[in-house]
């Protein structure tokens, strides 16, 4: 399998009043045209890892890496202009909450058209046609109506579909989805995941699925990277999750209540300082 993304020893450091905070501390993994899950709790550095790949790290933070290459392009070596050309075009990102990640004062259709016309030279009429087709591809039943709606006029699930449509319209090769379904209702979550699953496999994209929900990620992804305190504590195949070695991974799996498995009290994580070492 060809390597789409190669991350070696990625570090993201934030300067604060009390000194440097290392949010990501030497993360390495590689990704082909597959689904990779990054799992961890808040503060584990999973989102900052995704943002560093996307090039959305805040300007005050410092990034260093042995290697951060997308399709052979050194992401840290290229100019901001070249990075912008990649972003939204060959690398796309879906964020958690469509309420905040869509422009509230622009209709959904116009936002999708804008994304497309930023990256490709197409006529307005053609852009509209493609946006409508894309809305249909994310299973929006009445794309013509939704095209003219503003984000506040649609439900969370619909907004997230519009977001996926917008991110897919330029035909990215790598998609980073940062908690794409956490803000959605459980039944809507499944719809959105089904759409994402279908589109990713049809188009042969690489997907990085960032989430705090280990069980959800392992049901969706081929491989899982587990992060704790800015480091990767374990990498494993999703199918081998049951055989996870690291106590943190096992703790994450065990601590959630499950229907039909009564445990009182629930097992809690006994955090060891050496996990973060």
């Amino acid at each position, binding site marked *: 399998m060809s390597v789409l993304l190669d991350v070696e020893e990625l570090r993201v450091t934030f300067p604060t009043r009390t000194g440097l905070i290392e949010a990501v501390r030497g993360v390495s993994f590689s990704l082909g045209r597959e689904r990779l899950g990054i799992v961890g*709790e*808040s503060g584990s550095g999973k989102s900052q890892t995704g943002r560093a790949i996307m090039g959305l790290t805040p300007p005050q933070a410092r990034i260093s890496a042995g290697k951060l290459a997308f399709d052979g392009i050194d992401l840290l070596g290229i100019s901001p202009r070249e990075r912008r050309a990649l972003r939204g075009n060959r690398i796309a990102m879906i964020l958690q909450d469509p309420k905040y990640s869509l422009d509230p004062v622009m209709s959904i259709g116009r936002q999708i058209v804008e994304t497309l016309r930023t990256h490709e030279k197409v006529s307005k009429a053609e852009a509209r046609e493609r946006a409508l087709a894309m809305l249909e591809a994310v299973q929006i039943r009445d794309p013509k109506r939704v095209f003219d709606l503003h984000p506040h006029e649609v439900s*969370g699930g619909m907004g997230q579909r519009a977001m996926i449509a917008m991110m897919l319209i330029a035909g990215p090769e790598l998609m980073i989805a940062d908690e794409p379904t956490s803000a959605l*209702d*459980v*039944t*809507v*979550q*499944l719809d959105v*995941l*089904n759409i994402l*699953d279908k589109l990713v496999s049809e188009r042969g994209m690489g997907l990085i699925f960032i989430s*705090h*929900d*280990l*069980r*959800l990620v392992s*049901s*969706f992804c081929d491989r899982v990277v587990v992060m704790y305190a800015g480091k990767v504590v374990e990498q494993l195949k999703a199918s081998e999750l049951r055989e996870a070695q690291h106590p943190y991974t096992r*703790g*994450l799996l065990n*601590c*959630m*209540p*499950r*229907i*039909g498995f*009564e445990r*009182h*009290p*629930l*097992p*809690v*994580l006994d955090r060891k300082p050496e996990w973060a070492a």
Partner: protein
Amino acid sequence: MTSAIAVDRLEVVFDRFRALKGVSLEVREGESYGLVGESGSGKSTLLRAIAGLAPVSSGSIAVNGKKLGARRAKAFYREVQMVFQDPYGSLHPRQTVDRLLQEPLAIHGFADGEKRIERALDEVGLGNGFRFRYAHQLSGGQRQRVAIARALILEPSILLLDEPTSALDASVQAEVLNLLEEVRRRRKLTFLMVSHDLAIITHMCERLMVMQNGEAVETLTASQLIGHRVNADYTRKLLRASEGFVRA
């Protein structure tokens, strides 16, 4: 035996939107009761209506056998306290934990504040070291513990819990759920708990009501739900969804 909470054909209307369409509910004393549904199902509105935070247009609510009027008396809040979803929004950002916990004591004229604060912090596993910290110095789980301490400090008999762990990490969620179970057992509390997560509700509650579009879909015991002995298609759909993603 009187029921802890009895809600009869409750209607809540916001402007022209009927958020609750004649919902009835009965929670027995000492019971833990769950409300499940998706956003917009009215589950939180029902909880807020009981707490006096939603405009009730018809129907009635009785707590510990006493029918409630349009306004809640001070004594009501000695019996019923609420824990909200977002510990980042429900604690005053410029008050220390000590000040936060003193407020309900001052309102209700308790003299032994010092002792109660120490005991409440102890009970939620925080200890006295947290007493003079601000909310922003605490993690999400610690904040939710403070919110629980604030609810417990008046020694209520009923706790209304509105998605108390949905803003927390899975491992912290387990800690908070364990804490809630423990205080319920120790103080023989009645819980009315809202969640969109069926697994949490079956873990915490003996009975539950499934809601959709402001109406009750069905009432079940936790063991009926675990055994998939459900009648409504909507409940089945929720159950399927809670099992996670399955590739078609």
